[in-house]
């Protein structure tokens, strides 16, 4: 459960204030599938980063699963991110010296999970994204689509309640982009909340709920038109 009330995010650039987010009101239920679209600079990424607790709102209240997280101390935020949020980035952000399974193990490594369990869970998750045969490959030995699948495996290995994806197919051809989308939709159908920022209308249309942002505001919030 996510509840945003009057969320603002201002940037001071020189003398001017940029209102990247301007009084956002938004409720997201568990397990929803939402796409966020809108022109460049409209605040889509800023909203996603606030949702993922990577950024703090300048004003407003953010409630996550019933508790106010708008002004938690840094360490506490890290803990909430670890437990409830999974990120998928346009540029993957894999650690290049680590193998696929080591990249996936990373969140568990930081948690202090023991080696055997780590390895086992990483293998399971990598298996579920179709990378059974790529466990010991390093990122530079994988295709773009495979890298994004490793990133997805890493994002879901801690079983988060929300998966936040910022243009997850932006760096991929349409075939591997399609594969990535079907993987995350599969995860959504298993109950993980999914928020996808995208410029691709076909992709955006697939979500059950469509947010359109303009100038830091939610311009429209519609359910999917049933065909």
């Amino acid at each position, binding site marked *: 459960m996510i509840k945003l009330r009057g969320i603002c995010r201002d940037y001071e650039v020189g003398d001017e204030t940029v209102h990247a987010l301007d009084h956002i009101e938004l409720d997201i239920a568990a397990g929803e599938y939402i796409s966020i679209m809108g022109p460049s600079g409209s605040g889509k990424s800023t909203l996603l*980063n606030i949702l*993922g607790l*990577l*950024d703090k709102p300048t004003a407003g209240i953010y409630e996550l699963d019933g508790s106010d997280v708008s002004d938690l101390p*840094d*360490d506490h935020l*890290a*803990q*909430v*991110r*670890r*437990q409830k*949020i999974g*990120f998928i*980035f346009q*540029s993957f*952000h894999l*650690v290049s*010296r*680590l193998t696929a399974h080591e990249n996936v193990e*990373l*969140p568990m*490594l*930081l*948690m*202090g999970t*023991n*080696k055997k369990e780590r390895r086992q869970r990483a293998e399971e998750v990598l298996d579920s994204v179709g990378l059974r045969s790529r466990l010991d490959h390093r990122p530079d030995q994988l295709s773009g689509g495979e890298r994004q699948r490793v990133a997805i495996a*890493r994002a879901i290995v*801690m079983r988060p309640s929300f998966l936040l994806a910022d243009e997850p197919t932006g760096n991929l051809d349409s075939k591997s982009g399609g594969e990535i989308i079907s993987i995350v939709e599969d995860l959504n159908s298993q109950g993980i909340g999914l928020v996808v920022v995208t410029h691709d209308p076909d992709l955006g249309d697939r979500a059950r709920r469509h947010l359109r942002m303009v100038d830091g505001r939610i311009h429209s919030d519609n359910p999917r038109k049933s065909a």
Partner: protein
Amino acid sequence: MKFIDLIQFTAQAIFSHRLRSTLTAIGIGVGVLAVVLLTAIGEGVNRFVVEQFTQFGTTTIAVQPGKSSTLGINPAVLNSVRPLSLADAVALERAPYVLYSVPAVSGAGSIEANNRERNVNVFAVGPGFDRAFKFNVNIGSFLPPDNLERARPVAVLGAMAAAEIFGSGNPLGQRIRIGNERYRVVGVMEPKGEMLGIDLDDTVYIPAARGLEMFNRTGLHEIDILYAEDAPVDEVVAGIRRILLARHGGEDFTILTQQQMLDVLGSIIDVLTLGVGALGGISLLVGGVGIFTIMTIAVRERTEEIGLLRAIGTTKNVVARIFIGEAVLLSALGGAGGLLLALIVIGAVSVLAPSIPVNVSIMYVLLAELIAVLTGLIAGVLPAYKAASLAPLDALRTD
């Protein structure tokens, strides 16, 4: 994050840059190598000196003229100083626990005999000298137990002096000239080797009274006391002081126990060892700068990784620990390498050149490694702090 995982994670990062990690570690390694080698030489010299000083027994006390002054005034310039006399030496024989009281004056002199002349060390001592210091006579006997003040002109030759002057001939009973006096040889000593660079074999022993005359001195250089093994040192010293105070009417003498002499020497050598150790420490410092540089570069290169770590829920603290761990591991590995090399060098020296005194003190070895690790820690703190305080979003945006 578990400690073992932290080590493994940091090790992975270090080994992913083999060449530059090696070079950085070498910087620290050279520092540790320098510290260990230099202090090993210092320790070696220390042991060497202690061995030299204790080879003739540890229950000795030296009594010297003049009061060693804390004000730094040379006691010899004070005219209230009475010289140590032969009579003082005789009197000290009656002090409690004292076995031998040996008057001593020494200097350089030349021996003429058998149409040869040789410059030697002249030790003018009392007749108890050989027994007090366990110097054995090879042939003949040591100086006879004459009255100290009116000793006969007899001499005992050191092994080398005897060989050089008389060759394989028998020196016993021969007449020799030392300075302007004629002496009769009554004995030849066993070879003794060196002590602190003084050749104990290229010597001649004559009675103390004769030495005073020869060197034109009013007093002895010192009186050497040998006391019983089980005697309490404090009481021996007190007994000596009491007798000399009564004879001199004031404390114009210095009583130095073997232990005090060792302490003084030891503290001088410790300062020297520390000094050369600090020199090695400078190269450690340079190694530390290397680590700082490489860690600063690493943080910049891995900004994206730091952002990712933060995004998946790593606390600032853990990020800092990862980078400090890397710096410490790097310096610890370099330090261990330096240690290993130092031990190999020292091993080689003690096999190939056993006369060079080297001695590895485990204390200095541990200290060197500890300092290496501390160097890494200090060098790593600032880059690690920088890594930890990066805003996650800014870090992720760096590509």
